[in-house]
């Protein structure tokens, strides 16, 4: 089963993302910030990482940067969930190694179609 690590400090967003993805048949693991996600990622492998940008402790950009240092995450698609429609955050994310982004607000269908796009 395709596995996804969903990282967001907002419980409602995390629940929505997780519910949507599980409903579409994905195996979903949740984390509430970058630090927790990084810990999980060190012991488990995922086919895709979906992360919010603004989070306490470790933000999404730092998380992507750190994940890319891990051997089994070199080529893993990583998407950022961001409300920043301005290019600044996207640029920082890209430089950190993010694959792409999904702009908030998004609905479950948009989320699924983007994820399916990435996973092919």
């Amino acid at each position, binding site marked *: 089963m395709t596995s996804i690590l969903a990282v967001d*400090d*907002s*419980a*409602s*967003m995390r*629940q*929505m993302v997780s*519910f*949507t993805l599980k*409903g*579409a048949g994905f195996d979903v693991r949740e984390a509430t910030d970058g630090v927790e996600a990084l810990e999980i990622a060190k012991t488990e492998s995922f086919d895709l990482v979906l992360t*919010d940008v*603004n*989070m*306490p402790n470790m933000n999404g950009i730092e998380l992507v940067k750190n994940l*890319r240092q891990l051997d089994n995450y*070199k*080529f*893993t*698609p*990583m998407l950022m*969930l961001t*409300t920043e*429609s301005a290019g600044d955050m996207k*640029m920082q994310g*890209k430089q950190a*190694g*993010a*694959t*792409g*982004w*999904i*702009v*908030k*607000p*998004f*609905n*479950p*269908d*948009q989320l*699924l179609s*983007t994820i399916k*796009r*990435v996973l*092919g």
Partner: protein
Amino acid sequence: MSVDLSQFHQVFFEESFEGLDIMESELLDMDPADVDDETVNNIFRAAHSIKGGAGTFGFMPVSEFTHVLETLLDEIRSGKRSMEPRYVDLFLQSVDCLRGMLSDMQEGNDPETERPAELRKEFEVILGMEQESAPEEAASEPDEKDGGWLIDVQPHTDLLMTGNEPFRMFRELRELVGEDNFEVTADIDSVPELSSLAPEECVMNWQIKVTTSVPLDDIKAIFEWVEDECDLTYSPLVGTSEVEAESSAVDATGTPAAGQLPEAAAVASPEKTAVVAEAQKSAKPAKAPKKAAESSSIRVSIDKVDSLINMVGELVITQSMLGQLGQDFDLSRLAKLQEGLSQLEQNTRELQESVMKIRMMPISFAFSRFPRLVRDLGGQLGKKVILETIGEQTELDKTVMEKINDPLVHLVRNSMDHGLETTEKRIAAGKSEEGTITLNAYHQGGNIVIEVADDGAGLNEDRILKKAIEKGLVPENNSLTPEEIHNLIFLPGFSTAEAVSDISGRGVGMDVVRRNIQALNGSIEVKSQRNVGSTFIIRLPLTLAILDGQLVKVCEETYIFPLVSIVESIQIHRSSLNHVTGSQYVMQLRDEYIPIVRLDQIFGLRDDKDVVDEMMLVVVEGDNEKIGIVVDDLLGQQQVVIKSLEQNYQKVSGISGATILGDGTVALIIDISSIGKNIVPVKRNQNRSERAA
């Protein structure tokens, strides 16, 4: 796939209210002249989450309002602007406004629009924006280039290391334009010998020919994520030769390449992802089912849940052990049975403690509203006030916490209004310019103690006494100690209209505060010293669900008295009771007369003629008045779980609830304050007449 988003609304509201609390407390702690990045980041993050969630779950008015607030915060965060006191005020007002909007929406109503519009205007003036321009139309213009495009894709070597996969994009493009209109050619010239090939690098280039009328923006959207990791060139195919096409290339960023045709410029409009375009069409908020605004759920830390699961595990083990023992039991295994039962008792107690802990929350939840209150009130009263909070992590039951909020607010308002002196008076009295209000919480025995202290002028005993005499609350010739005088402020009727001010008045006197606290089985007292300050001390049980009870016997019935109300228990003879009026008895207990209540009489348990001579009297204190309750016998003391009589039957005067005892029988819990109510007038008259005599 359709997902019902309303199932996430409650969580969204809860976290948004929490976010607003964080914003408020950070703003209140902030010194605008010296703001650290972390504080602004915390505020920004909270606003940002609310905006993101509101947009996703369809609460557009909240999302739009938070947007302007976030814009100003972002400018402060990025150092474009520095924090100013007026911004702090505006942010605080916005927090209030958002709280109102979210509450409205939580209840399924449309949020108010006037206040957000006013505040929004203020933000826009600060930000130098006139009116937010209408959202850009994301729809692309119809493309006149219906011949198609030649796309040159030259990835940088590190493309794969962003998780992007060229074939994925090609597949997507093929789906977009149709298989028949799609042709891709790989350029392998730059692929090195196998021995020097670095497998992590992308070393191939591609040329894709799409013959389609699909708008260029849609094609570009597919490559949007890799614009910086690829050199992308889009050249129109106008049914001409490729040589011509190349000369009209448009690079990926939309900047016209050298020799570009004018038509190409027209299609190089600012890109927007498909996601953005669709998202802006988000549906209007669905009406949420009407829900109570008060939070009906609690957050429980994983530790507490784990400990509960652990306890249940132990209980299951004990149960299976006892089950086995019961299957073929003989007396030789009695010791084992007793061991098992004591194990069960321990498990049950631990489980009970763990379950109770779930309802416990740190008092910081109640304290957190005070910085704002003190700040606003200080401004209103023109007093400089510092708020200190101690013991914020002290835990108490969620219900108790919710109910203690109003009395606490009243006490703090009262201390600020009447307790603390004006700045001038403080300086004249040699005190610091700023007054201090201290909120302190700690556990003492099975209770939580909350103190509200001020370093103000202290209670004026002469004035209190004078007023109490005027009101007829105490006789003129009295020998009250200063402590007794201080506690007169809790008497009903002490608060007068002239004492009611905008701040602490609201027509609610200290007697109401005391009544509310007593309704929680708690007590309040005041300690005060002239020119040093006053401290209100509230004692509350840790929970309302369990009561430390004294079991008593009356005829064949067992009743429970809250242990906290019992002053003493004494054996008396029937002859020591005196009749006053009708069936009302009083008894002289040392130097005071106390009214006597006979439970057997109140509950109609036996005829008067059957009353025995030797009686047991339990002296209890409710509403600061002692009463004696006659019972037949004192049984043991134990913790009892309170079951509501109101929910299961109906409200009964004199009874606060019921419990189920170990033997399965139901015992009623006596409500000390209401059982004494019927006799209070008699008692007062009696006391006074006795004293006068």
